[in-house]
């Protein structure tokens, strides 16, 4: 097999147990070396837990490998320092710190790439001195993404970046992700089908802690019945 065809990330039989309840029951999927892989599924099926298990925030068993090297069980900070950028659900910016301080804290190298981040989100430059806690939800999401994008990454894990945002801001975030994905592969947890339609090259669908469908994103959304069965929503053009 051509090395370029081998997946960047391999997740196999990933299991997470919370107090006797199996949240993940053997999740298996791959993320290719380019483009965006969207992870979909109804609320509570384990999408966020999958990301958190991969990044070491919750204890898990199974196999998670990047370029054939196991990363499961390694401390979160070492994984991120090694180039796995993580943008968690609900943004989690530091509200008491200014925008500039949030970004400075996130710098992982001596030469952070502020140019790209400010090109994507010029607003952040103008609001550098503003406390992040006083930003709008959309601005906080931009900051959360910028914190990751100022650094060199091998893989981005992005959890529901459009959640709770106004449609105009969703457009900006989607565009930023599309441009970020030109340089680095992205595993994107997303519920917004319009966003998935624009972004996803590959799709992974989770149900009850297991992967129930994998394939090209376009195939998933092209079949309205399949989308309805798997996700419980229609994927008509009107659902934008």
């Amino acid at each position, binding site marked *: 097999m051509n090395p370029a065809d081998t997946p960047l990330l391999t997740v196999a039989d990933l299991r997470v147990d919370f107090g006797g309840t199996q949240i993940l029951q053997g999740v298996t999927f791959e993320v290719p070396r380019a483009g965006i892989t969207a992870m979909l599924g109804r609320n509570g099926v384990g999408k966020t837990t999958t990301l958190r298990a991969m990044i070491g925030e919750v204890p898990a068993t199974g196999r998670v490998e990047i370029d054939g090297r196991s990363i499961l069980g390694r401390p979160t900070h070492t994984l991120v320092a090694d180039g796995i950028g993580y943008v968690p659900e609900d943004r989690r910016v530091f509200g008491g*710190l200014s925008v500039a301080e949030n970004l400075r804290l996130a710098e992982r190298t001596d030469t952070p790439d502020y140019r790209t981040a400010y090109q994507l989100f010029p607003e952040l430059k103008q609001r550098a001195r503003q406390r992040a806690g006083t930003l709008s939800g959309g601005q906080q999401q931009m900051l959360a993404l910028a914190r990751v994008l100022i650094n060199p990454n091998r893989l981005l894990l992005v959890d529901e970046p459009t959640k709770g945002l106004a449609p105009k801001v969703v457009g900006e975030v989607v565009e930023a992700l599309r441009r970020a994905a030109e340089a680095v592969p992205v595993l994107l947890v997303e519920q917004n089908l319009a966003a998935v339609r624009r972004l996803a090259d590959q799709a992974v669908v989770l149900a009850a802690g297991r992967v129930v469908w994998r394939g090209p994103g376009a195939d998933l959304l092209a079949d309205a019945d399949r989308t309805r069965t798997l996700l419980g929503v229609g994927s008509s053009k009107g659902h934008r």
Partner: protein
Amino acid sequence: MSTLILLTCTGLGLAALYFLIASGLSLVFGLADVLNFSHGVLISVGSYGAWWLTGQVGGGAGYAVALVFGAICGALAGTISEIVLIRPLYRRPMQQILVTVGLSIAGVALLDAAWGADSRLFPRPAWLRHTTDLGGALVPNVTFLLIAVALVVLAMLLAMLRWTRLGLVIRAGVEDRAMVAALGIDVRRAFTLVFTIGGALAGLAGGLCGAYFGSISPVQGTSLLIFAIIVVVIGGMGSVAGSAVAALAVGLLQQFMNYYASSMGDICVVALLAVVLLVRPRGLTGRTA
């Protein structure tokens, strides 16, 4: 009037002492989520370290060196206790609390075994034994030293939090430790450093306690700890500025009530704690700096 001046000055002195103890405790609690019951022993370690050194080198300069030495002793004890005993238990808070309580008991017993349970006279330099006439009130000079040291420490802590990388990590970590790690930062290293800083400040406070009380004993630090914990809770966990304000309130209230309300100072402080908890459960501030 002179009574008012005297009570205010001694209240400020006591507040300074509380602040030195509470600020480190607050940073440790705010960042690492550890309520360190062994913080009191670090004060005693500092006071015995300073006491030992003043026995070797006398005079004002000797006392200054002794204060630094006390701080170093406290810093070392704080750092070692974090690395050896507290670090392995970050995912087990109950065991962690038990370890710090055990360390506190064992630390007092060790000091007891080495130097006895009785108080030891602390050799103070001449200037600190005297008083200064301030508007008719004879204020003990040690009060001014306490206030000056506390102000310098407050300024240094605020500058550290505001302008250094460690300060940034601490302020962010107090809000969301896991997210700091998710930015690729080894937050555990910052935990150790706040234990070092907290230990140094407790040790410094220990050396000052010697001059303030005129004597030291193994349990002196642990008896002060309860008021420092009250200051931390009133000021808001993890907030240095909050600790400063709360220390002022507690120190002044305690001094005034001890004089005007027949030694009711301690009870009034506990009442103040109850009122703050009822009105603002997260303390006066919810912030770090």
